[in-house]
C-alpha cells in the first residue's frame, strides 16, 4: 500500500473525531476544544465556560471514542467474516449475535431498565447465541461454512421472534418505546464507564483478528485447500468466531443494533486496498472508526432530535454502496 494511503487512513478518523468534538447544538470553538483537551495534561488557565468543558470532556469525548471503537470493531469483524465465509454478503450478524444480543437487551429493559444490566444481558446473550449456532453447525468434528451460515439463520430467526415477543408483551407506554429505541441503535448512553468495559473487549477481539489476518487469506481459498496448506482450519475458524463475537456483542451491548458497517466498510476497503487481509483488516479498522464517528455526529447535529444510528447508517450507507457496486460492476476489487 502506498504511503499516502496509509497517511490518509490514519488521518481521516482522527480529523473526523476532532471535528465531532466541536460540532453539536452547544457550539465550542475548534481551538478551544484543543485547549480544553490539552488542559488535562498541561497547566492552561481556562478562559472557557464550565459547561463547554463538561460538554467536551464528559459528553462528547467519551461518545466520540465509543463511536470510533464500535465502528472499528464492527468493520474489522465484517471483513474477517467475509473472508472466512468467502462471501461478500456476509456481515457481523451472520451467526445470530445481533439478534441474540438484542433479545438480551430487550429482556433486561423489560424487567429492570438498569443500564449496566441491559449491557450485561445483551453481551451474555450475544455470546450464548453464537455458541448455540456453533453447536448446531458442528458435524463430524468440523464446522462446514454452509452449516454455520444455515445455523446462524436459524438462531437469528429464533431470537428475532423472541424480540418481537418481548415487544408484544412490553408496556406500550414506557417499556415498548425504550426497547424499540434501544434496538435502533444509539451512542447517547456513552460514558467513561462503558468505555472502560467495552474498549478492552473490542481491543482484544481486534488484536486477535489482526494476529490471524494472513492465514485468513489461505482460509478464503476454501477449507479443504487451506488444510492441505497446513492451516488448522477448525482452530482458525474458532479464533475468528470468538474474536468477532466478543467484538460485536460488546458493541451491541452499548450501542444497540447498528447494521451496515460490517457489510459495507469491508467492501469499500477492498475497493481501496484490495482483498489481501494483511492490509484489508487494519484498513477496515480505520475506516469503520471514521464512518461511525461521522454518522454519529450527523445523527446528533442534523435535526433537533437525535436520529437513531441504525437508521442513519443504512440511509447513508445503502446509496453509497449501491453507487460503488454500480461503478465496479460487482467486481471484488
Amino acid at each position, binding site marked *: 500500500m502506498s504511503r499516502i494511503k496509509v497517511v490518509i487512513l490514519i488521518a481521516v478518523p482522527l480529523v473526523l473525531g476532532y471535528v465531532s468534538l466541536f460540532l453539536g447544538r452547544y457550539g465550542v470553538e475548534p481551538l478551544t476544544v484543543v485547549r480544553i483537551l490539552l488542559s488535562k495534561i498541561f497547566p492552561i488557565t481556562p478562559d472557557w465556560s464550565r459547561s463547554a468543558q463538561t460538554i467536551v470532556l464528559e459528553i462528547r469525548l467519551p461518545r466520540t471514542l465509543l463511536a470510533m471503537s464500535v465502528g472499528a470493531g464492527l468493520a474489522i469483524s465484517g471483513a474477517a467474516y467475509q473472508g472466512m465465509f*468467502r462471501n461478500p454478503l456476509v456481515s457481523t450478524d451472520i451467526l445470530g449475535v445481533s439478534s441474540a444480543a438484542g433479545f438480551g437487551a430487550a429482556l433486561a429493559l423489560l424487567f429492570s431498565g438498569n443500564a449496566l444490566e441491559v449491557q450485561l444481558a445483551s453481551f451474555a446473550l450475544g455470546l450464548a447465541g453464537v455458541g448455540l449456532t456453533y453447536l448446531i453447525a458442528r458435524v463430524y468434528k468440523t464446522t462446514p461454512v454452509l452449516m454455520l451460515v444455515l445455523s446462524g439463520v436459524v438462531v437469528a430467526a429464533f431470537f428475532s421472534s423472541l424480540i418481537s415477543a418481548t415487544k408484544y408483551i412490553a408496556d406500550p407506554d414506557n417499556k415498548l418505546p425504550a426497547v424499540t429505541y434501544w434496538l435502533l441503535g444509539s451512542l447517547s448512553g456513552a460514558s467513561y464507564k462503558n468505555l472502560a468495559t467495552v474498549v478492552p473487549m473490542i481491543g482484544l477481539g481486534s488484536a486477535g483478528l489482526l*494476529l490471524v489476518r*494472513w492465514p485468513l*487469506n*489461505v482460509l*478464503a481459498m476454501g477449507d479443504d485447500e487451506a*488444510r*492441505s496448506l497446513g492451516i488448522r482450519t477448525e482452530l482458525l475458524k474458532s479464533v475468528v468466531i470468538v474474536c468477532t463475537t466478543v467484538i460485536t456483542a460488546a458493541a451491541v451491548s452499548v450501542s444497540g443494533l447498528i447494521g451496515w458497517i460490517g457489510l459495507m466498510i469491508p467492501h469499500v476497503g477492498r475497493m481501496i486496498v484490495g*482483498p*489481501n487481509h494483511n492490509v484489508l483488516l487494519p484498513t477496515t479498522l480505520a475506516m469503520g472508526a471514521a464512518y461511525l464517528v461521522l454518522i454519529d455526529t450527523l445523527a446528533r447535529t442534523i435535526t433537533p432530535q437525535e436520529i437513531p444510528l441504525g437508521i442513519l447508517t443504512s440511509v447513508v450507507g445503502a446509496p453509497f454502496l449501491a453507487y460503488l457496486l454500480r461503478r465496479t460492476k460487482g467486481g471484488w476489487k
Partner: protein
Amino acid sequence: MEPRISLRGGAFRYDKRDIFSDLDLDVHPGEVLCILGPNGCGKTTLLRCLSGALKLGKGTVWLEGVDISTLNVVELAKRIGFLFQEHTTSFPFSVLEVVRMGRAPYLGLFGSPSETDTELALAALERVGMLPIKNKPYTQISGGERQLVLLARTLAQEPEVILFDEPTSHLDFRNQALSLEMIRKLSKNQISMIMTTHNPNHALLLPDKVALMKSGKFVAIGKSSEVITEDNLREIYGIEVRVFTVSDPQGGGTLKLCSPWFR
C-alpha cells in the same frame, strides 16, 4: 531404493459401501504414478487418502517409513502437496499472494510471509514460467495459467510428494501438454508425483508407472507401456480400444498411443 510413499492394504468405506479395498502401491523418489480409471472408480478418494485428508478405513500410507496418520496437518503440508481439481475463490488475490500461501505450513497460526518466503514464491513462479503475471488478479487469468500458478504454490510448499487430481481436465491441448511437460521436468528433481487422469495417452506420455483402477481395485499396476494394453483398457472402460506404436516421422524415436476403436 526405499519408496518415497507407499500404500499397504489400503481400504476405504463410505456409507457401508467399499470405495476401494486391498490396494498396494509404491512410488519412488522422482517417479510419476498415473492412476487411470473410469468415473466413480475411487481414484479421487484414494488420492485424498494418500494426502492424509481422509483417513483410510484399513491399511497404512507410509511416507519414508512414517505412518502418515501420525502426522498433523502442518507436517503433512510440508511434505505432501495437493493440487485440487475443483477450485473456486471469490477474492481477486494477486498471483504472487496465492503462491505465497504455499509457505503457510512454515508460518504457524499467527504468521505472515517474510522476505525469504516471498523470494521462494517468486522462484516457484519462475520455475513454472508464470513470473511475468505475478501481479495479475488470480481470478482473471486463464485456466492453464491458474493450473501452473497452483503448481507454483505447491512447489513453494517444498513437498517431497505432489498429488494431482486430474491436472489436465479443464485445459486445452496446449496447456495439457505444458502441464505434462512440467510434471516430467519436476520428476527429474526427485519429487514423487501421483496423478489421476482420464486420458490413457497422458499416462503413456509419462512413462514411469500406471495403475489401472476399476470399482475400487487395481486391475493392473506397472510400467505404463506394459500395463496399457488393449485388453486392460477394454476391461476397465468396457469399450473397444487399439494401442499403436508410432514412430516420429522426424526420427525422434517411437511412442505408444491409444485410441477408442469404432467399428
